[in-house]
Each structure stands twice: as structure tokens, then as C-alpha cells.
């Protein structure tokens, strides 16, 4: 099934965006996020970007104060996911211009729209930045 979840979490461990592609109860989510964030935040720059947790493999990347964590199963290529995270960040950059944690917090809906254009049902659906952003631009123009 590929991508199971996408999380954005800051250095303090606060969730800034969470999108799941399989159903987990709220308790399961809380527990999972807690465990994974604890594991990933404790790691340093010299360690690899993959953390094995239960049945997931978490591919993560840090940008300033924000961690991007993607949970995948064994159907995914780890490095491809790692670069997919970067593609997501670059796309956000193109839209917000030097994206930061606050942009994502206060424009949660846009972050969701972008992610929704990129991932669907746990699969990558689009990787062209202009295609990803065109619905949002359309909406911005309309308002």
C-alpha cells in the first residue's frame, strides 16, 4: 500500500500536520506519534534517515525546526521517499517562499491541499510542482 502516514512535527514534538492513509484510532495515533517522534528526535545528523518502528519504516528529514516523517511499508523505496519529502518541501517553498513552521501552522489548509495533490491512497499521484500547485493558485485567484 506504500505510504501509511505523513507527519510534520516540530523540535518540541508538537504535531503540525498529520495525514494518515490507513485508519488508526485516535489512541493509536497518539501512541504512534509519541513513539516515533521520540525515536527520530533523538537521532543525530550522522545517523541514517530510516528508523524501523513496529511494522513501519519511518523515513524522515529535518528542515530547521521541523521534522518531516513518512511512514511506509516494505513496498516503498526508501531513498525515493526521502526525496519525495524534499519535493514536498520545495513545492511548499515555491508557494510560500521560504516556507517555515508558521506557514504550515497558519495555512494548514494549503499544506493539506498540496499533500492531497501529491499523495492519494498511500501512492504518489503527482510530482510536477506546477501541476501540484495549479488548483491552489486557481483558488487564490478566485478569492
Amino acid at each position: 500500500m506504500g505510504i501509511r502516514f505523513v507527519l510534520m512535527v516540530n523540535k518540541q514534538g508538537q504535531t503540525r500536520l498529520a495525514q494518515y492513509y490507513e485508519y488508526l484510532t485516535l489512541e493509536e495515533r497518539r501512541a504512534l506519534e509519541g513513539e516515533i517522534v521520540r525515536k527520530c528526535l533523538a537521532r543525530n545528523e550522522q545517523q541514517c534517515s530510516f528508523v524501523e518502528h513496529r511494522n513501519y519504516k519511518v523515513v524522515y528529514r529535518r528542515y530547521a525546526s521541523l521534522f518531516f516523517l513518512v511512514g511506509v511499508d516494505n513496498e516503498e523505496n526508501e531513498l525515493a521517499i526521502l526525496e519525495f519529502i524534499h519535493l514536498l518541501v520545495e513545492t511548499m517553498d515555491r508557494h510560500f517562499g521560504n516556507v517555515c513552521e508558521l506557514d504550515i501552522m497558519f495555512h494548514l489548509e494549503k499544506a493539506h491541499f498540496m499533500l492531497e495533490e501529491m499523495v492519494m491512497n498511500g501512492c504518489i499521484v503527482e510530482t510536477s510542482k506546477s501541476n501540484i500547485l495549479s488548483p491552489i493558485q486557481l483558488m487564490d485567484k478566485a478569492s
Partner: protein
Amino acid sequence: MALSGMRGLSVFISDIRNCQNKEQERLRVDKELGKIRTRFKNEKGLTPYEKKKYVWKMLYIYMLGYDVDFGHMEAVSLISAPKYPEKQVGYIVTSSLLNENHDFLRLAINTVRNDIIGRNETFQCLALTLVGNIGGREFAESLAPDVQKLLISSSCRPLVRKKAALCLLRLYRKNPDVVNVDGWSDRMAQLLDERDLGVLTSSMSLLVALVSNNHEAYWSCLPKCVKILERLARNQDVPQEYTYYGIPSPWLQVKTMRALQYFPTIEDPNTRRSLFEVLQRILMGTDVVKNVNKNNASHAVLFEALALVMHLDAEKEMMSQCVALLGKFIAVREPNIRYLGLENMTRMLMVTDVQDIIKRHQAQIITSLKDPDISIRRRALDLLYGMCDVSNAKDIVEELLQYLSSADFAMREELSLKAAILAEKFAPDLSWYVDVILQLIDKAGDFVSDDIWFRVVQFVTNNEDLQPYAALKAREYLDKPAIHETMVKVSAYILGEYSHLLARRPGCSPKEIFNVIHEKLPTVSTSTIPILLSTYAKILMHTQPPDQELQKQIWAIFSKYESCIDAEIQQRAVEYQALSMKGAALMDVLAEMPKFPERQSSLLRKAEDAEADTAEQSAIKLRAQQQTSSALVLTDQRPANGSPSVSQLGPVKVPNMSNVNQSPAEQELTHANGALTVVDPQPPSTSSPDLLGDLLGPLAIEGPAGTAPQSDPRVASGLEGGANGEALAIAPIEEQNNTVQPIGDIAERFHALCLKDSGVLYEDPYIQIGIKADWRAHHGRVVLFLGNKNTAPLISVQALILPPAHLKMELSLVPETIPPRAQVQCPLEVINLQPSRDLAVLDFSYKFGTHVVNVKLRLPAVLNKFLQPISVSAEEFFPQWRSLSGPPLKLQEVVRGVRPMPLAEMANLFNSLQLMVCPGLDPNTNNLVASTTFYSERTRAMLCLIRIETDPADRTQLRMTIASGDPTLTFELKEFIKEHLISIPIPSRAPAPMPAPMPPQARPTSPPTASLDPGALLAGLL
């Protein structure tokens, strides 16, 4: 319309951000939820803008981890808003907050469908995305044709079609029937001619799912995939937007190569050649570059290419090239590449002929075991475990032991288990094995499970040569200060049995041995004291001539513990005291423990359970499992009586059939074995000519282990003079066809397995099929153990699963040949789709000599395996019970012809069926209330409530009421319970007396069940 446009929301987010602690945050959230709730109550006053704002707040709160149990209706209702901004919010928030089983989602089906078939592209996209993310079965059935139409429509723009592809993937997963293979395979191939890379990317994911289920139907897609790969690799016609750091869509390249790995081979030479050209170019042409992103992307493609090459079984030259590349990777500085190098090398172990090349990198892999990164250490451990064989076991295991003392706690248990398994499997000699295990206990006692020391005791008991050595080692460890309690246990046990073999050595007189062990007694827990008492009794017995002083000392200890509060300790103390007064008779009673029957290493089983492993690694695991233990357990004599299980390491050699304190289960076992001893007075005919062959073949899993090495008496007598399997080949075929009779009653075995999770499913003179199952929610993992009992191979082995419609079952590859005395394990994955009592059947056949045996066996994947007992309080029970009113959710039936049983027995029966009896809920003591949760993919977890009203005057009838949220479930559960009440299949008991024929009107809802029930039909068949 941005959030910043919604001031209230921005303020709320700022507030949350400014909260100093979690408590403040909770207060702020509660306040906001209260406000939203009030506003939603007077919905009339809400503008779409406000609604939208509140719905976003709900999503935000939900994301923070707070339960939002209202307002779902409002979110769903936004979907039908006419304007885009509201509609969009409705769609996104709905798909984040609700799951596919949510009732409100049904309300939206029509709106969603209208959006999908409507003309507005943006609405189409929104609707397809929602269905793609959370659409359930109902969506699958009603929307699949529309979605397919969009996907292949030429008038549709790519932005809609790419979403349609993934939406269809979702619907297909919910209900595979929505994609008609015949019609769709051509369309799928056409779809791959698409130029737009977005549509191709999502179509490729769809293809992966379709091909993984049925590669034959999609054969025509294979050359298209190769074409796509060529197009990307040559960078032909790839728009700039799809080029990532100069690499044409690495994601599509990776996905395409993944799809190709689902086709077993590539037959067409031209296609194969083109593909290998591309792969060769990727393998050779990927250089390390400075830019991190470019480097990652190109290596993502490279690793996928490596995986594909391995899959395609390329020529040896290309394979060695791959191993060389991986060897380079595991030594680079970049940690990601190191990690992936190790991971892929582990996958590579599955390829034949490359193991030796991989072994050249052993030193580097061992270095990785000390990497600062735990992710990398884990991969290194896995790889070392997988690549270990007789030639390098000593080195690898010693490395693992060395690493153990510095390893992090998170890894120690896995590490010690793996070291123990490797030591057992590949021990060049047994004294080394004993050394390893004792070191393991010494270094990481806390992480050494009981299984590990039980196993070493088994080996020592069964190998006379080993006993003095093990005793000496144990004695040495006892001299160390502060040893682990497990070490006390194992040393005490071994010294109790074998210390007399050391008697002439200095420091090993009975008295000295006793003293050194007794020193530890104050430091150990109650679970160890019984073992020490047994050791004392044994020391006493071995001290000839008796040493009065020692005797007095030990008797004093026994009398001290005669009043111990722990029953086990007390009983042993009393019994040993009494026995040791008997003088010479003690020698007989406390004689050396008999040899253990051969059995599968419980460690291996544990390793399987412990590893929450992934699909790809499972193949490696399988390979590991198929190698049987090379550490030989010598059993040159049959176990003297009912197999003493390791967990009950009692010191008393129990005289046959005369023990009184065995548990009923054990007695049953002894009984069974005793009975067999009567009909088979000779040692098994195969043991004498082929001693070695006898040592292998851990046949039995649990329970009747003692019966495993024995042949069926009829066959044994037929073999007289012939003594081994080859003799069979000479005998005329006609005669033999009738000789293969199952051992034991198949139906009884099946019924027993319905209530427990491991045991023997089938046995005949040649093979034993055991089962071990692990059920979690609607998933089941069943392992079939196929054990060849002979010294000749079983060939043409075939196992076919005939699953009923409600179970999805996948059996891993069953080898065609089972080597002599070997046991293979075949995992079987089960997914329960919906409630049903239908049964799955294993169609199993094999050939032995000229015998062709074919049996159809019912598999115990029955309804109660998907139940999980749950206790329900009165406050939870009654509202549920009331809310489920009347048929079809609540069904009632008067059942006659029930096997009469006291209420307590019925309660036990219910509990054994995973229906938890909740005492006290029903004030009438003649009644019984039970609850359970049923799991299936369709129903998810669903609570079921059961009430039985019995009539104390007539125990053969009762009234049964079953309620659950699903009509089929209610019905199936009712019938299921009824089957068990009317005739309870308990093994080893005479069949229940058939109740008097019941009047037809007594079972109005299900008159023909008995004859329609496939289980019953099958039972007739068997």
C-alpha cells in the same frame, strides 16, 4: 480563501501556540470545542463561512490528538455545498476525520457520485480523492464503473485521470471483483501508452496492485513497462517539470521497476535484452555526486535496479557486479547508503550462488554491527543472521557474543535469541554450543528467555558425551561472584543430574557441589528454589556411600520448606523428604532423566513470533527455517514414557502410568503414548540401521511429541526385515495404496484445533502436519509444519488451499520435496473478510515411494478464531442490548436437543469459544450472558452480545438471543453457538449421545442448516 482569511481560526491557532503546557492547551481546546458545539446546535444561524471555519478548527483539534466526537455531520454536509471553497473543505476534512465504516459517509455517496459523473473537473478531482482515500465496499460497488470510464476516457484531462487511477486502486482493494480481469487487462496495457507522466505515475501504482494479484492476466503490460523505463532512462520526451535534479522522474522509474518485479520472468528475448541494457546502464552509470538530492534520487533508482536484477536471476557476472556494488556501499561514509547496502545484501541472500561472494564482506558487516546508528546495527545483525552457515558460524556467533555486552538494551533480546539459534543450528561440535549458551546467560542473563536454557538442558540430557563437560562448565560458572539467576538454574539442574560424573575432580565432591549451590539459595526467587531442591535430592541420591552430615543438612532444608507457602516448593520438599528416607529405593525413583523426544527448537518458533517482519524478509526467514538443526540430539532410545515437557523439568523419573500429580493434559498424553507402546512393543524399525537419520527431523510441535518417531504398527509390521523406506518401493502398488491410513482421528484433531492454536492436524506413517496459528483481529498467521517421518524424501508434495468466499488466504511456497526426516514450515496468511461459518480446506498430496496420498483436511480457521473476548459492564451492556432491537440485528431462537450440561460447564464452553461470560449481568442465575468482539475486514471490530436462558427443569432446551450490529454476523454467530451446544466436539471423549430427533418447528429459522453446512458436508466426505 486562506486560513488567514478566517480570523477566528488564526486566533485560535495562536492561542494554542502560546499555551505553556499541555494542561493549558487542553483547557483552551475544551473551551473551543464547547463553543463549536453550541454553534452547531443552532445550525440555522450558521453561514457557510462559519461552518467552514469551525470544521477546520475541528480538524486542527483532532490533529493535536483530541477526540472530536461531534460535528461530523457538518463536515459531511459541506460536501454538498454548491461553492468550491466550502465543498473542498468538506471533502478534505471528511476524509481526515472519518473512516470508511462511518455511517455518515453513506449519506454522502450520492453527492459524491454526482460530483464524479458531473462536468466540473475540480469537483471530480475532489470526489475521486475522497473515495480514493476512504471509500469502502459500498463505494466500490456503486462507483467502480464510473471511475473506470473516467480513467480511460480520451476526453478527460490528465488531472482527473490520474486521480481516477488511484481511486480505482482503492475500490479494487475493497472489492477485487470490480475490476473484470478479461476486460481490463487490455485497457491497462493501453493506459501504459499514456504520455502524461502524472497519469503514468498513478497508473503504475494501480498496475502493481493488479499484477501482484494475478500476473498472468497482465502479461501484455510487461513490454510496455520496459518501454516506459527506456523512455525515462534515455530521457526521451520527459518534460522539465518531471525532471528532478536532472533525473527523469525517479519515482516513476522506481515504481516501474517495482511493477516488473511482480512478473516471474521475462520470456521474450527482445524485451529481456532491452531491459537488461537499461539496467546495465543504471548499474554502471550511477556516480556519487555532490548534490545530496541528486545523489539520493539516482541511488533510489540504482537500488531498485539492483532489486530487479536479483529478481530476474541475471547471469552470474551481473550478479557479482551487484554484490560488488553493495560491498562498496556498506563501507561508504553516507549512512543512508550503508543502511540500504546492508538491507539489499540481506535480500540478495535469496539468490543462489552469491552467498560465497557475500561472505567476502563479512568483516565489514561485523564492523557495521558496531555502527553508531541502531538502524544500521539492526540491518547488520539481520544480515549476519541470514548469511551464517556451518563455515562461518563460529566467527559470527563469537562476534555476536562479544557485541552483546555493549549492545543497547533494545537489541539484546533479539541478539541473544539469534545467537542461540545460530549456535544450535550450525554448531561444529556440541561442547561449543554449550559454551555459547552459558556465555550468553552469563553476559545477558536478563535477556535470555527460559526457552534458551531449556534447550541446552535438552541437548545435554540427550548426549552422554556432553554431560561431564557441561557439568564441569556449570561448576566453573558457579565459582564466579554474582551470577545471574538463570545461570543458577541451569547450573543447578545440570549438576544435579551429572555432578557425580565429576566426583574425582578437586572441588567436585558431593558436599562441595552442594555447598556452592546452596550458597546461591538466599539470592534466588521462588521459581528457582524448586530446581535447587531437586538438585539436592539428586546429590543425596548420588552420594554413595551416604554422607551422614550432608544428609542431615539437606533434610534440614527439606523440613524447612515443608511448610513453605509456595505449593510447588512445599510439595517437592515433602516428597523428597519422604523419598530420601527410603534408602536404596531412592536410586530407582530419582534415576537420571530420560532423554527428551526430538522436537523442533522452540527458539526458532520464538524468532518467528518475535520478528514483526516484513514481506520481503519473510522469504529469507523461510530459507533459514528450512535448514534443520545441525546440532544433533541423540536419541538412541525411545522416550520411556509420556514426553516430559521441558517446562516441567521435574527430577523424578515417573514410573509409567503410576504418577498422581500430573495435570489432566499430561495424563492424557501419557495415556496416548502408553496405548501406543502397547501396540508397538518394538523400537521403531528405522532407528537401528540409520542412527543419524533418526537424530534429525524435529517432527512434533507440541503435545504428542512422543509419538512422532513411532511408526504406525501396521506399517512397521509390514516392514519387518526391510527396515527402511526403500523396502516399500519393492512391494506391489495395489497393496500399498490401502496401507496409508491416518494415525488418529482427523475429525477429532480438527475439533481440538478449533479450540486451541497449535497441534497436529494430520498424521500418517509418512508425514505429520502440524499447525501453529496466531490470530490477531481479522488477521491470522498460520504456520503449517510438514514433517517427513522417514529416511527417504517425500516427493511431489502439493498443498492447495480451497478458501471459502469469506476468507482471503495466501499460502507461501510449499517445496515439492521434503527431505528425509526434515520438517518444513509453510506460513499461511488469512484475512477474514466477513462473518461466515464456511470452512477452508487444505488439499494435500504427496508421493512416498509408490504411494500417492491425497487428503482433504479442514483447516481450523473457524469463526471463533476471529473473536476476542471482551468484558462488558452493566452500563455498557444494557444500552447496547436495547439499541439492537429485533431482527435482523437481534435474533432469538429456542434450541432443543441441547447436550445437557451444568451451567458452569456451559460457561467454560463459552469461554473456550472466546465468548466471555459476564457473571452478574443477568439476575436470573439460570441465565448466562456473554460478550465478544468479532473482527473481519467488512465489519471491523464489532461487539456481539449473547444471552442464554436455560430451563433448570429441562436441560436439553434453552433460549438463545444474539445481538450484534451486523445481520449476517448475528445469524452466523447464532448458528455457530448452536452447533457447539447441540454436539460438543471434545477430543478423546465418546461422541455425544445424539439428542432425540427434534421436531421441525423447533428450529424455524434454520431447518436445512445441517445439510447445507459445508462443514457437515465435508465431515461426511472425510
